């Protein structure tokens, strides 16, 4: 076996080469940058090493605002989108007529361009000299005060952001959950019927545990995806997210690199590593919970 080992490495070489150039090296680089104080990418110089970059980032009000926005987004959209997707999948699973049609309809947002979706949301929510947006028309129709969702109060902007994110991430979840539901053997439901199990109990005691691995998969990837949110925000609020107060952590990293106030790769690296630490922690917790509750 030992002799043939070089062959195995040969087969792995393309993957290893690509991964080390485009993944491992940048990761190490980011790690190094984050400790180099006053790093200048043009002259490739820095004047010291230490934790100053982290300290700066953690005291930057823009970064704190970005962290707050990101966390609100994660905490609201992951449970809401997963829950809604589960409800819709259960509905799809229990109808026979028009199932394919509805499946297609629910999957459409997945194949629609983010920016196109952003345009639609503009029409729904944005105030222009000519119109207040469709939602405001509705609010006024029912006797409410019109709200400026794009440039208005913080809660309105977060609301639009959450609705947008939920709407964008749901199709994939519905797709995964409908196939998970369809793969639960019919015999379990027949056995439950023989025992006279009430529908809600069938759901909580049989359906949910059977699809639990898929639900956990969606929650974990959902968390990671929501922490990395950025393009959706740009689609709605434009590129100057700091001004709108709607920046996210990834947005902050981007701004530090290339934005109007950019040119600080060290700060960007520190922020990216903080994000990495957060995502890692949450994912580990998620995995621990899912291991515990899907043991069979």
């Amino acid at each position, binding site marked *: 076996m030992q002799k043939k080992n070089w062959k195995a490495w040969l087969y792995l070489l393309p993957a290893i080469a690509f991964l080390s150039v485009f993944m491992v090296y940048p990761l190490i680089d980011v790690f190094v940058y984050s400790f180099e104080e006053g790093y200048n990418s043009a002259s490739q110089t820095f004047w010291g090493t230490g934790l100053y970059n982290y300290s700066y980032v953690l005291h930057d009000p823009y970064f704190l605002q970005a962290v707050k926005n990101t966390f609100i987004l994660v905490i609201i959209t992951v449970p809401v989108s997963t829950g809604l997707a589960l409800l819709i999948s259960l509905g799809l699973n229990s109808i026979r007529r028009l199932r394919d049609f509805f499946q297609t309809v629910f999957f459409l947002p997945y194949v629609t361009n983010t920016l196109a979706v952003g345009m639609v949301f503009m029409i729904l929510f944005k105030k222009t000299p000519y119109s207040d947006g469709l939602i405001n028309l509705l609010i006024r129709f029912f006797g409410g005060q019109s709200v400026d969702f794009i440039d208005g109060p913080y809660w309105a902007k977060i609301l639009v952001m959450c609705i947008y994110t939920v709407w964008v991430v749901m199709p994939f979840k519905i797709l995964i959950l409908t196939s998970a539901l369809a793969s639960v053997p019919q*015999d*379990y439901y027949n*056995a439950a019927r023989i025992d*006279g199990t009430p529908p809600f*109990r069938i759901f909580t*005691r049989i359906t949910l545990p059977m699809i639990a691995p898929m639900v956990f998969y969606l929650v974990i990837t959902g968390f990671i995806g929501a922490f990395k949110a950025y393009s959706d925000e740009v689609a709605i609020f434009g590129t100057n997210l700091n001004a709108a107060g709607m920046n996210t952590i990834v947005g902050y990293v981007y701004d530090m690199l290339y934005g109007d106030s950019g040119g600080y790769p060290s700060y960007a690296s520190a922020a990216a590593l903080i994000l990495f630490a957060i995502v890692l922690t949450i994912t580990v917790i998620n995995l621990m919970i899912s291991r515990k509750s*899907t043991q*069979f």
Partner: protein
Amino acid sequence: MSSDIVTPILKRESFSDIISLTVSKKTDRQMIKGHIYDPGYGLESDDWKRDTAMKVVLDHLTKRFPSRSKKGEDVIAVNDFTFEIPDGQLIGLLGPSGCGKSTTLNLISGLETPTEGRIYFGEDDVTHLPPENRGVGLVFQNYALYPHMTVLQNILFPLQNLKGEARPSKEDMRRRAEEAARLVQIDMLLDRRPSELSGGQQQRVAIARALVKTPRVLLLDEPLSNLDARLRLQTREEIRRIQRETGVTTIFVTHDQEEAMSISDLIIVMKDGFVHQIGKPQTVYDEPCNLFVATFLGTPQINLFEGRVENGRLYIGQDAVLKVDCADREKLTVGIRPEGFVLQENGPLCCALQAVEVMGRDHSVVSTHPAAISKTIRSIIPSEESPHVKSGSVRFRLKPFKTYLFDAGTGERIPFSAL
């Protein structure tokens, strides 16, 4: 776990106690109850069985499935099935795959609703009752144990679904689940998950889950098909024992005739949705009503020949094998069970000998005959009478009661008696 480790002792007093919970005639029960709690209560007595066992009446039961294509004809899975299954017995529903036996089981369980006809449990018409109100226990072919629950949770599950007055207390549920587990001898495995059990153990858990609600009728769908050969023998005796001890009317589906014959009180032979014959296993074997039943039952299979009746003699090819009392017929099918051949030096049936297979107690003689419908004829001969292969031919006398005549066209049996 194997059944020979644990002696099959049922805690009778407590299991019967369970049963008394489900019985409506309370006064009668309490009188008997005194009996039951008496430790000297005989194991042979089956007093308490009578209250719970149910006869199952199928009245012109028909199930049609609509055809997939619009022009095609409906598929008739069960066709006009009428029979009264007596209470407290073990019934084997036997037939080749696709004969409608599983559909019949699903109709009785309530998972399917019949197109026509009615089903009664005792005097109750259950035709349109949902499954949970019928009081049936169903053991699925692949057991359908919930993989995320332990054995105990699986057995408890049906009880936890009960509502209102029928719902027992927590301790009661646990006790009943343990009783059921003890009955099928898995009481030491209660904390395991199904994936940690062998096939045979999973089967027992499935039976315990079906029994824990003390059903009026126990239904088993191909209970042995997922087990290996050795376990199959053991488990079918287990099923027999469990059925005897609980006395519950049990219907099981199988395509294996040996399985059905060995443990059933009655077997029902089905094909293409029709019931061909119902009777005690031995009776059905000895007196098959038509060619299908005769060929379906028995291993090795019955040997078939083309024959004719001429002047009161039954001919197979040129050999006049038996004197019979029926009218002349140009063409009929003669069926002879393997054990119906007797070696005789100048016997009437002359066959070309091919091989003798040694099976220990018996020898199986393989030969050919020009009038045989199958390629070879197989006969079972006691080992001490075995012929020499070198002799080239072999002559048989036929046992008349192991010889059957069937109409060559319809396959209906033609009664005759040998003279």
